[in-house]
């Protein structure tokens, strides 16, 4: 506020100075015309006669100057030597006039004379006579009363409305901002007074300027609520799964207290159960991470070629013990295979697909990892597919396996892997398809090269 007032003051001061300069020069220009007219009138009536220079002062000259009412006037007519021929001899001069007498154009200057500042004009004319040309000068002075009055008038007439306008503008701007921001105060109160769980949309009628802000806040609250609901159901599911899994582990361990073969078998079962629980925990964390990352804007160009290569190296290392035939099909080298997305989430999705293929496949499993260019809803996209030679999934099951904690088959996993893949596909506005290959299953995640423009960043 202080800064804006200071800036305003400086602005007004600058304007005032500019106005003053303008007013002064305007007043001078206007009244200089009178002086010049008077000088011309005087010069016109100076003639050369056989008896010498004849000066017939025209009444019009001083009449012109009397057009402004209150100014005193002074004049003299002088020759090239500066000798006064008629008029007041002691008028102040200027050295440049004395130095260069054959002046033909009017020269104006201010000088103190007779107790006041007086505006003078000096103008000259060369008279042609029989023997030689003679230069004659006229100096006319006028006090500055009319000029000052005009200056004041111009400044007042422009500065006062300007200042009034500026002040009115300032007041109206402040009032306008206050008026426009009033709904925001209501919104602020609304938000402040809410319970922490209350995520109802704001019902304020916002001014047009902040409408989009309110819409964005409401959209954000809607997503927040959605995500909270998801998190709640996820936590409930996780709690249930963990409890079940741990309960199973506990009962196996209890059975392991028996002696003999039954005890040994129970220990093995307990170990299996512990491994499943660990895997379940990892999967849950992975799923949570994918969901969590989807909340943030982490999209960047992802080179699928490099991602797939690193992933296969990892799998070959991890599953070195198993006998897996893993082949990779990439687009021919000059083509790039890049999508805008979350590299870690995509990697996680592929990892899960491959794990599934490994787990459900027969001993002589053939797994193929494909990356190929395609289109999705008319936009360029890449399909990343994992084919195996396992039993496949019955059509009736295909939808269910995408749900969390749905597991089938003897080698059923945690029931969370395909849910992760589906979530990743959704986050990227892509799609996830399961298709039978008879035999075998083809799981394909299709990701657009760039997210659709209307995509809301979730």
């Amino acid at each position, binding site marked *: 506020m202080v800064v804006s007032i200071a800036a305003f003051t400086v602005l007004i001061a600058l304007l005032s100075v500019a106005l003053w300069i303008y007013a002064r020069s305007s007043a001078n220009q206007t009244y200089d015309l009178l002086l010049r007219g008077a000088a011309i009138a005087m010069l016109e009536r100076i003639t050369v006669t056989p008896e010498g220079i*004849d*000066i017939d002062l025209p*009444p019009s000259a*001083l009449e012109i100057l009397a057009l402004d009412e209150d100014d*005193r006037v002074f004049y003299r007519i002088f020759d090239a030597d500066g000798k006064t021929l*008629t008029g007041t001899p002691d008028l102040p001069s200027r050295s440049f006039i004395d130095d260069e007498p054959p002046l033909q154009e009017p020269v104006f200057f201010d000088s103190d004379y007779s107790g006041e500042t007086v505006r003078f004009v000096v103008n000259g004319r060369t008279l042609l006579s029989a023997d030689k040309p003679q230069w004659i000068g006229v100096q006319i002075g006028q006090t500055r009363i009319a000029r000052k009055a005009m200056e004041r008038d111009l400044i007042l007439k422009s500065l006062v409305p300007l200042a009034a306008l500026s002040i009115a503008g300032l007041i109206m701007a402040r009032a306008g901002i206050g008026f426009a921001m009033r709904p925001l105060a209501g919104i602020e109160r609304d938000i402040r007074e809410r319970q922490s769980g209350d995520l109802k949309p704001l019902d304020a009628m916002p001014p047009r300027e902040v409408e989009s802000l309110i819409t964005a806040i409401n959209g954000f609250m809607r997503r927040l609520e959605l995500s909270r609901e998801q998190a709640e159901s996820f936590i409930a599911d996780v709690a249930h799964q963990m409890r079940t899994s741990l309960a199973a582990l506990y009962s196996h361990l209890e059975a392991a207290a028996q002696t003999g073969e039954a005890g040994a078998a129970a220990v093995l079962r307990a170990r299996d159960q512990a491994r499943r629980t660990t895997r379940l925990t990892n999967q849950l964390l992975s799923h949570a991470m994918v969901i969590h990352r989807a909340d943030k804007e982490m999209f960047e160009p992802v080179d699928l070629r490099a991602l797939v290569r690193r992933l296969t190296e990892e799998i070959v290392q991890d599953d070195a013990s198993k006998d897996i035939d893993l082949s990779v099909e990439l687009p021919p080298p000059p083509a790039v295979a890049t999508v805008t997305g979350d590299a870690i989430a995509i990697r996680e999705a592929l990892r899960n697909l491959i794990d599934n293929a490994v787990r459900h496949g027969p001993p002589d499993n053939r797994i193929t990892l494909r990356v190929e260019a395609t289109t999705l809803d008319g936009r360029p996209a890449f399909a990343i597919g994992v084919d195996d030679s396992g039993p496949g999934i019955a059509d009736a099951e295909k939808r269910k396996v995408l749900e969390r904690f749905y597991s089938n088959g003897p080698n059923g996993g945690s029931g969370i892997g395909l849910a992760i893949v589906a979530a990743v596909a959704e986050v990227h506005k892509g799609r996830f398809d399961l298709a039978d290959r008879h035999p075998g299953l083809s799981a394909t995640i299709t990701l657009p090269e760039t997210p659709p423009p209307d995509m809301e960043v979730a």
Partner: protein
Amino acid sequence: MTGRSRAATGAACVLLAIMALSFLLFEQRSSAPERVVLDVWSATDKTAMSAIVDGFTAAHPSIAINYTEYNTSELQEAVLAAREKPDLVISSAMDLQVQLVNLGLASPVEDVPPTPTWSRWREELFGFTQEPVALLYNRKAFADHPLPDTRSELASMIRDEPAFFNGRVGTYDVALSGVGYMFATQDAQRGFQASRLVESLGRAKAKIYCCTNDMVQEVASGDLVLAYNVIGSYALEQVRQDPRLGILLLSDYALVFTRSVLVTKASDAKEAAGDFVRFLLSDDGQALVDKGSSLFPLIESFGKGQAFVESRFEGSTSFLPIRLRPSLLTWLDERKKAKFLRDWRGSINGRSIN
């Protein structure tokens, strides 16, 4: 005056009263305030001004007037030369008064009653009369002779009837009389008829005079049939008393001049001098100008317009006031004046000799 300054003035007055009272009681001093003496230098008949001066001193008993009379050109020289300047300068020579103001010798006076703009300048110089310039004629001579209506007609008459006019017309000697010079120059400035008229006057061997009164005497006696450019107010007084005299305003125009007053910058009694100026233009002062002198008051005649003057003169005309402005200075220019006088003399003498 704002409320605060009024209150301050009131307080000051009370304080002054207490001080005055204490002086009376304890110091045994005279209660009469110090008398202010105003030096008035004037180029206007003392008889015309005396009623005004008396009226002023009656209204302002603490102010005395020291009245000195000059003729107009003497007055100018005296004011310029004086080491101790007068407080007030009054003159019928408008050009010389304007010159004094233009030299910066005058001081502004506040709160002077409103008057026409042509009759005041810079709030330093104030006209207080309005006096037309007229044609005075002998009624008997013009009994069976038509009166001229315009300057053009007058010039033609004088030219066409030398027997009637020769040696029997009069006007101001412009070299001798300041107002005569002013009237002649204003005539010259207003129109080409002026030079024709002066030539006609010259051809008719016009007599020239220093003063309006001399012309009035000669017209009354019948030595002159008419006198051109007389001061209407002076002449009118005689016309009213003397049935032989007639006074006429030519219909093309009538010059109007004003007597003016200024307070000098050097005055050490500016307030009292300002009181005098304000008095001159007050209703009381103007009434005194009207009744107590032969001059015409400015404000009343201005208020009534033409009617005031036309009720007193024959003929009807448009008035051309001579403005109290620096344009009058043109005719004070030495070269200009010398040239004008040379030409005028040439017209009035040279050709009549031929």
